[in-house]
C-alpha cells in the first residue's frame, strides 16, 4: 500500500498500541483497549497532514507513539528513512530535536515550578543553541511575540495563565527548536479566533520558510480544511479514510467521515439552529475486522 509521497519525512506502518487495564469495581477482570490498531500513513517534508476523528479514537496515542514517548505494541516508525521504532534513548535524542510536540493538555505539559520563560528556553539550552543569558532572553522574547504573548510574562508561573495563554507557551517551546516535524495535538482549541489565525499564519510561515511539516490533530474541521494538504480520519483506533483535503470535504466516502462533516458547526445562527447532522451507528456501520485501506481515486484511500 502506498498512501503517499515517495520520500516521506515520516512513515508509519501497521502501528498498534494496546492497553490492558484492571476493569471495573475493585479491579475486577482486566480488559484490552486497542487505542490504535494497524495504522499506516506518511508525511512528506513540508506537508501538513490533518488527523481528525472520534474523540477517543487514538489520535493522541498515535502522536505519542510516533514520538516514542510510548512504546508501540507493533508496527514500524521511520523518520527521514531511519527506522526509529526500537532505537535506544541515547540515539533517539538526535531525532527528538527534529520532532517537536504540542501536547493536548497545555497545563499538564508545563512544569508548575518553572517560569514559562525558562520552560521555553529549556530545549534551546539542552541542545546548546544559545550561548549567553541575553541571547537566550532575546530569543524567548521574540518567540513570545510570535505567539501573541507579552514578553513580560516570561517570569510568570503556569498557574498564572489563562488556558489559551498556556497553549501558546507550549507552541513557543515547540517552534523554538525549528524542528522538521511538529506534532500539534489540538494546539489552538483554547484560543480566540484572532489568535488562532495568528498561530495558523505562523505555522504556515514556518512551513514555507523552513520547510516544516506538521501532523495537525484537530476537531475544528474548518481550520483543517484551511490549513492541511491531506486529511486522515480515525474511528475507534483505525484509520478509515485518508485523502487530499478537498477530496475529503467534497467527496467523503466512509460513512463515518460523512457523518462527521455533516456535524461541523457553522457560524451562522439561522443555518446552525436548523442543521441536523447525519447519524452514524458504530455497531451497524463499523468497518469489518479484515477491511483494508483501498485506493478509490488517486491518493484517496478508504477502509473497506
Amino acid at each position, binding site marked *: 500500500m502506498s498512501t503517499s509521497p515517495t520520500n516521506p519525512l515520516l512513515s508509519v506502518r501497521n502501528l498498534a498500541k494496546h492497553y490492558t487495564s484492571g476493569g471495573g469495581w475493585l479491579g475486577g477482570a482486566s480488559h484490552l483497549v486497542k487505542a490504535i490498531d494497524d495504522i499506516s500513513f506518511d508525511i512528506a517534508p513540508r506537508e501538513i497532514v490533518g488527523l481528525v476523528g472520534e474523540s477517543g479514537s487514538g489520535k493522541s496515542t498515535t502522536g505519542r507513539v510516533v514520538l516514542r514517548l510510548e512504546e508501540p505494541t507493533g508496527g514500524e516508525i521511520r523518520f527521514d528513512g531511519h527506522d526509529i521504532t526500537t532505537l535506544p534513548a541515547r540515539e533517539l535524542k538526535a531525532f527528538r530535536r527534529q520532532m517537536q510536540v504540542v501536547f493536548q493538555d497545555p497545563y499538564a505539559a508545563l512544569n508548575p515550578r518553572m517560569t514559562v520563560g525558562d520552560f521555553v528556553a529549556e530545549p534551546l539550552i539542552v541542545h546548546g543553541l544559545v550561548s549567553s543569558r541575553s541571547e537566550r532572553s532575546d530569543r524567548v522574547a521574540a518567540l513570545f511575540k510570535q505567539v501573541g504573548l507579552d514578553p513580560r510574562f516570561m*517570569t510568570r508561573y503556569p498557574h498564572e495563565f489563562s488556558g489559551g495563554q498556556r497553549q501558546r507557551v507550549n507552541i513557543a517551546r515547540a517552534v523554538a527548536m525549528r524542528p522538521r516535524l511538529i506534532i500539534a495535538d489540538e494546539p489552538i482549541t483554547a484560543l*480566540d*479566533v484572532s489568535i488562532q489565525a495568528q498561530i495558523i499564519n505562523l505555522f504556515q510561515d514556518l512551513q514555507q520558510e523552513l520547510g516544516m511539516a506538521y501532523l495537525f490533530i484537530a*476537531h475544528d474541521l*474548518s481550520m483543517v480544511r484551511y490549513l492541511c494538504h491531506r486529511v486522515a480520519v480515525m474511528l475507534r483506533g483505525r484509520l478509515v479514510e485518508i485523502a487530499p483535503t478537498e477530496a475529503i470535504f467534497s467527496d467523503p466516502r466512509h460513512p463515518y467521515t460523512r457523518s462527521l462533516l455533516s456535524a461541523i*458547526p457553522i457560524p451562522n445562527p439561522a443555518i446552525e*439552529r436548523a442543521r441536523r*447532522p447525519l447519524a452514524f451507528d458504530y455497531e451497524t456501520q463499523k468497518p469489518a475486522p479484515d477491511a483494508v485501506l483501498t485506493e478509490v481515486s488517486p491518493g484517496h484511500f478508504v477502509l473497506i
Partner: protein
Amino acid sequence: MAPLLEVRNLTVAFDTPGGTVHAVNDVSYALNEGETLGIVGESGSGKSVHVLAMCGLIPRPPGRIVAGEVLFQGRDLLTLPERALRDIRGGQIGFVFQDPMTSLNPVLTVERQLVELIRRHTKLDARAARARAIELLEIVRIPDAARRIGQYPHQFSGGMRQRVMIAIGVACRPKLLIADEATTALDVTVQAQILDMVKDLKREFGTTVIWITHDMGVVAGIADTIQVMYGGRIMERGPVDAIFADPRSAYSWGLLQSLPTAERRAEGRLHQIPGSPPDLYKPAVGDPFAPRNVFATPRCQLEMPPLRQAEGSVPGHLVAAWYDLPAALKARRETVA
C-alpha cells in the same frame, strides 16, 4: 420576573510580584431563567476568572474580589459562607471547568469521583448512585461506560475526560449550568450530541446556561444571547442573530473576520487583528481595544465607553463604543470603491 443571576460591577484582580493584574473590570449583566448566554472573547479576557470568582473558586491570595455582587436567586454568592457555597456548587450550579486534568483527582477512579458527588447532593444510596453515574457516562457518550467507569482519569482520552467533567456538571440537574470551553476536545459529532443534551435539559428542567467558547459555530447554534469580552470587560452583548449579522464593536467584527472561511482559503492567509493584547497590569483609561482599533476616535483612548443600546438595532443589543461601526465600515467601503 427577577433574573436568575445578576452580576453587578464584578471586578477581580490578582496581586503578583510583577504588579496587580486587573483580570475582570466592572462586569455587569443579568441572566433570565431558561436563557442561554454564550460568552466569547479574547484569550485572557477574564471569561474563566469571572465565572470562577462568582462561585468562590479563585485562589485568595493572589486573587482578590475588588468589588461587585453576584445575586443568584436573590442571594449574593460573594458574601455566602464557604459551606453554603459548596452546597450550591455541584447542586444548583453545575460547573464544567476548562481544565479537566486539574479538576479531576488523578488518584481516584472516575467512578469514585462521580459517586461521591452524586451522594453528596442527593439521597441516593451507593448502588443507585453508581447506576446513575453509569447512566451519566452513557448520556455523554462514553462507549462501554459500565466497564470504563472503573478507570482512572489518565486512562481516558482528552475528550473522554472532558465528557466526565460534563457529566459532573449536569449530575444534579442544576438550575444554572456554567460550561467553560466544555467541548473543545470533542469531535463535532459527539459535540453535537452534547449540545442536544443541553437543549434537552433546558426543555425539560428549564436549565439556565452560561456557555463559554471560542467556537463561533457552537454559540451560533446554542446561545440566545452573546456576550463578547475583551481586556476584562464586556464589549458587546445582544441577541445571537444581531451579533452575527450586525456586530457593533470593532472587536467582535474583527473576530468574525478572522474565521477560516472559503474566501480566506482562496486568499491563502487568515485575517488576524493587528496589535497585541492589552496590558492588564496597567489597564487603559479608555477603551482597552482602542490601540488596536483602526476605527477608534480620540475619545476612545481617553474614556471607556459605557455599555448602551446600539442605535438602530434590536432592543437589548448593547455595545461599548463611542462611534458607529456600520457607518465607519460603509465609509471605508466607499473610499476603497
